[in-house]
């Protein structure tokens, strides 16, 4: 089980979502992907997609306008 960080600070939609999707494809079940974002609409579409795909998702607010989306891959 490994943990991978994906820095998407300063990236606008839908880049964080597409990057997270591609990254997650290369990972195994149980692995954790941490996506750092500062674009509020990514805070909506990224967790929405990940939950629909069946992964476990948690959102942490790091600072004003900065979030960390924690995705645990479920196969």
């Amino acid at each position, binding site marked *: 089980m490994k943990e991978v960080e994906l820095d998407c600070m300063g990236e606008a939609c839908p*880049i964080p979502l597409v990057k997270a999707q591609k990254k997650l494809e290369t990972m195994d079940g149980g692995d954790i992907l941490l996506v750092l974002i500062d674009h509020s609409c990514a805070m909506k579409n990224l967790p929405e997609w990940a939950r629909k795909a069946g992964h476990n998702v948690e959102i942490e607010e790091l600072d004003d*306008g900065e979030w960390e989306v924690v995705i645990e891959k479920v196969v």
Partner: protein
Amino acid sequence: MKLTEKVSKNQYYKIWFKDAWPYITGAVLLSLFQIITFATTGNPWGVSGTLAYWGAWLYELLGGSVEKWYYFSRAGVNATLRNGFLSDPGSMRNLGLIAGALFSVLIASGFKFKKIKSWKQVIAAVCGGLLMGYGARIAAGCNIGAFFSGISSLSLSGWVYAVFLFLGAMVGSKLLVKYFM
């Protein structure tokens, strides 16, 4: 417990100010405000047309003249131009838009100055902005004035706009993935 902590834990604060509203809430409010806008100003909602006036007023402030420009020589457009900023409902609405967006991000404590990540972003933003602005003017409307207001006033042009909006979004997505991934 400090007041700010108390507020941030309040469930109504979370529902109303912190979390994004559901799409359906937005849709209902947009429709409602479209009706109010139409009833009070006599025109449906538009955003980018007003920005052209702002550009013209700014240009005139610097000593330029747009009198001879075809775009501003048409009667209705010229009247709005002559009546000025404070008499233009669109200008007041656009100011409200900016103030409202700022308020909503501040009250959700989500305000942040974002750093520019690369020159690619700057070039894409400038090119995209110019294409959107120019396109909206020669199409006589943007995705608000021509698309949303067009369809909501039962105009066929709004649907034509929708088809090409979709095609444009498809091309845009491909370019985005090609250059930014």
